Structure formats: C-alpha cells, structure tokens
C-alpha cells in the first residue's frame, strides 16, 4: 500500500533580479507503507522542497500529494495530526530545555498536559538525553541537538516520519549513533521519507532510493538495483604523485570499458572495466611500466557514488548554492 504519494509536483521561485528557479519540476514519488525511502541528491536538487510540500509547509504551484490517502493541500490540518517532521528547517527552541521542548510539542499536538509530560520523559530516556534534559538546548552538542530534534518528530509516535538531512554536519561517530536510532525506529514499522546528500546513508538506511536532480526523480530502486544499473566492476587506483594525468587517462581508457574519472586532485582514478582481474593486471602493468608509482590498486563493485555520477554527470556531495530555501 502506498503511504506517501506525490505526483507531478512543481514549485518555482523567482529570486530578486534572477531567473525563475524550478525547485520542483514535475517530481513524483511513492513510498509504500512501513518502508524507508531516501531522497538522494545534491544541495538544490529539490529534496527539502519536496519534504516541505509533504509536511504542509509550502504549497506547490501544481501537482498533488497525499499521505495515507489524505490530500496534503486540501486538508493540511489532518496531515499534521499524523506526521512527525525533523530537519534543519523545523528547529527546536534553543532557549528551552530538552524536556521543555518535547513537552511543548506534545501540548501542541493536544495530548494533554499529563500525557505530554509522560511522553517527553519517555523520549528523553529513549534518546539517551536524561542527563541533559534540564539544560537549555543552546548548550547541546550537534549530536544531542539532532537527537532532541528527532525526538520532537516522534512525540505522537507518528505513522509517517520525515527526516530532512538527519545527519548533515555531524561528526562520523554521532552519525553512526543516529543511524542506529533511526534503524530502531523503522524496525517498528514507521514509514519514513528521509533526504540525504550522503550515498552511504541512503545505502545503509533506505529500502528504496529515489535519486533526484533538478527538481525531479531521475532514477529509483534499491541500492543494489541502482548499482546494477551502472553495471560491471571498477578498477580504482591511487597514485603517489598526481602527475602525468594524460598518460594515466590514456592507459585507463585503453583497458577500461568507459570513461576514467579522476578525483582526490588527480591522485585517485576509477574506470569501469569488463573483465576485472585481467583489466587490473594490465592497468597495473601499464602504469608501473610508464614509471608511475602506485599507492594502491584494486577492483571494486560500483558504489552509489558511481551511480550518481553516471546519472547526473556530477558528483553527489559537491556544494552548490542552496536554492531551495523558502
């Protein structure tokens, strides 16, 4: 059963003295009940705008959206009764304590004073914030702040949860901890739509990934399906010095089956190949034969990075100007 459905969403902005920005350009999306879907794309792709439409924060110019059959545009009030939203835009109050924030959210969901307090205490324990619960959020670390923010989205234990870039800006340890929390949540059957710029995050958390770019979905599927769609193996090598770029490119194109892509300032190269072991040995032979020193060389399966690059022609985690802020 489809739980979150967006169809042909269009949203345009006209920044002062600039051409019209099509933040959403006919985006359609279906999230089955009880599954996690990741919207994967770079800044400005339309991820946040999509979530803002689905959480009733902005109205699209055209298109429709429904959550559990309830029309988001016609009955936003009813939608708000069944969603939890967490993200950089839907913040917590910095001047309230962790407990006060959750209690306030509970009261505004109209749970009643007693139930709102009980629920705040439950969430404080669930999110391991007992020691910090009476401190103002302003003094929280980045990871704690995200936890209280996520807890705020869970106050009514909603059947559907929107997480907008839940781990952006967190250090790797906090990110891992938050992933554990999110995984626990979804094992309870909650339907989740999360947005991320991190391929690894989509790979780890999502049942299904929608790659978006330029305000529309350009590919959908499980992580494995998307990787398979890019096909074949890769040979990746890392040079000690980033020189002789054209020589390296020439060798890789000769033995590879596609375009060689440099990264890491030209030290690291990846090229798709047909027959992994044979290509690897030929490439290593040719590169060392050309007098270049190798740090590392090997075969690997395509990653979501490769998928993204192939689909959009640009890397996933590059930093563009955020154009979707509404």
């Amino acid at each position, binding site marked *: 059963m489809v*739980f979150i459905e967006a169809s042909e969403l269009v949203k345009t902005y006209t920044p002062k003295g600039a051409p019209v920005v099509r933040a959403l350009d006919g985006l359609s999306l279906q999230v089955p*009940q*009880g599954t996690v879907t990741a919207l994967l794309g770079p800044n400005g792709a339309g991820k946040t705008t999509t979530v*803002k439409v689905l*959480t*009733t*924060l*902005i*109205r699209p110019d055209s298109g429709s959206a429904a959550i*559990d*059959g*309830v029309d988001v545009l016609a*009955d936003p*009030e*009813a*939608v*708000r*009764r*069944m*969603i939890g*939203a967490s993200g*950089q*835009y*839907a*913040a*917590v*109050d*910095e*001047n*309230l304590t962790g407990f*006060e924030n959750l209690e*306030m*959210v509970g*009261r*505004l*969901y*109209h*749970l*009643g004073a007693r*139930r709102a307090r009980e*629920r705040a205490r439950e969430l404080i324990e669930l999110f391991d914030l007992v020691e910090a619960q009476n401190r*103002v959020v302003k003094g929280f670390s980045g990871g704690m702040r995200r936890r209280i923010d996520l807890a*705020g989205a869970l*106050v*009514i*234990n*909603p*059947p559907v949860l929107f997480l907008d870039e839940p781990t952006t800006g967190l250090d790797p340890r906090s990110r891992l901890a938050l992933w554990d929390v999110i995984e626990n949540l979804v*094992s*309870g*059957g*909650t339907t989740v739509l999360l947005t991320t710029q991190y391929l690894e995050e989509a790979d780890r958390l999502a049942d299904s990934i929608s790659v978006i770019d330029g305000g529309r979905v350009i590919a959908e599927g499980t992580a494995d399906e998307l990787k398979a769609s890019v096909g074949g193996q890769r040979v990746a090598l890392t040079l000690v010095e980033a020189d002789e770029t054209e020589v390296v490119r020439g060798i890789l194109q000769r033995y590879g089956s596609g375009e060689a892509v440099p990264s890491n300032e030209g030290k690291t190269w990846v090229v798709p190949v047909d027959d992994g072991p044979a290509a690897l040995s030929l490439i290593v032979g040719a590169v060392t034969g050309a007098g270049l020193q190798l740090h590392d060389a090997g075969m690997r399966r395509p990653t979501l990075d490769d998928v993204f690059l192939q689909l959009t022609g640009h890397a996933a985690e590059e930093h563009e100007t955020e154009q979707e802020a*509404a």
Partner: protein
Amino acid sequence: MSTIESNGSASARRASATLQPVPGSAIGRFLGDGWITTRRNLMKIVRVPDILVFTLLQPIMFVLLFSYVFGAAIDIPGSDYTSFLMAGIFAQTVVFGSTYSGSAMAQDLKDGIIDRFRTLPMNGAAVLVGRTNGDLVINGLSMLVMMGTGFVVGWRATSSVGGFLAGVALLLLFAYAFSWLMAFLGMSVRSPEIINNASFLVLFPLTFVSNAFVPSENLPTPLRVFAEWNPVSALVQSARELFGNVPAGAPVGEAWTAQNPILTVLIGIALLLAVFVPLSIAKFRALGRK
C-alpha cells in the same frame, strides 16, 4: 476528523499506536495553544535575561536622564518637569517595547521554530497571540519599573485609583495593539535587524515630535501641527489626564485629537486591532505560499 480513523487503521500494523489528541473544542485548543506559546516566550525572557535587563534598564535611564538633565532646563508652567515627563516616558517605552514582537517574529521565522509549529496541528493564530502576549508581559514589567523609578524621583499620580489603573491599562492596550502591527511587519521582512533599524527610524520621530518630552505649543508650526495629530501625543495626553499630571492652565491644541485624547487612543487601538489582527493571521497562514 476523517483522517484520525484512517491513520488508526494504518498504525494497526505498527508495533505501537499513534498517540491521539485528547478531546477538545476549537476554542479550547486555541486558548491552550495561545497559552503554550505565551509560556514559551516568557521562558525566553527568563532564559535570556539580557532582553529583560535592557528592557528594564532603558526606561530607568530615560527617567533619570530626562528628569535631571532636561528637568533643569525645561520650564513647565503650572507643574514640575518630572510630573510632566513621566507619561511621556511611559508612552515612549511601551511603544518601543512592542517592536520586540516584530524582531522576535522575524527571528523565530529565521530560526525555523515557526516551521516546527507549522508542521504541528496547532492553531496558527495562537503563535501570534503568544507573541503579542509576551510583549504585553514585558511592557507590564517595564511599566512597574518605570513607575517605581518615577516615584523615587518625585512623580505622583494625583488622580483616583480608578483613573490611575485606567491610565496604565490604556498605555498597555495601545502597546498591545501596536505589537500586532509589529508582528505583521516581522513576518514581512527578511531579517530581524531590519525591524530594529526601521522601527528606530520611525519611532524616534514619532515619540519625540509629540508632547511627550516638551509641550508641543512651543514647537515651530509644522512640527506643532504634526505633534497635535500624532497618536503618541494623544496617548501621552490621555495618560497625563488619567494620572492627574496635566499642568494647571496648560493650553490644549486645536486638533480634534488633542481635544479628545482618550477617545483618539481608543479609536487608534480599535483600528490597529481591527486591521492588523486579521492581516497578521492571514500573513501567517500564507507563509507557505511564497
């Protein structure tokens, strides 16, 4: 609401159920939401004491500066300057105090807390009620502090208790109505700083070109006419009348507003509320359309 049932069926397959709201009427929820957001704004005053300290120190400073510096130079026939001055300081302070609604609204929008509220099934108008209520409390506190300081430097309300209370109520009510205008502006600008700077530019002339600090009949004609029609003058004059601080034999301006200050202020309050309450609520509801 039809959706509660449909989401009930959806959550039946989940490990635990969605929490449901307690039964309540629309008006009860509106008042409850208004109280919760008011409480939030009051907590901010407690948690960020700078706001309160500056809001309270500034009027003390004004009372002392004006009564001691200008008091020596400005001669008010039939009264001492301090008695004349206090209503002016009261009016100026509460009008400036209400600008906080504008900058705080702009700040909350910027911080994303308004977006959080807008994803919740609460009454949007309650956010504005909470905002303007917060200002009312701050203004009430600064009135207390000013009256205390005024008492120390020799100000006395010589009217009845009823007149005194009516004066306080009129000042606070005017400022409250003004808060709604400021809240509306706060949602219309890009940053909280704009509100602070713009209100400075508008409110300083408005409060100074009035009868707040000097008798307006001594002003050059164009300024005098402006001062007589200035709503702040009507507010100050009303407060003076209600506190019993009108200098004996003081001339009254010819403008209708100068002749009928209390009525002018009441009409002003009614107009501000009638225009900016619905306008602010509509603006809040339309935040998602831009």
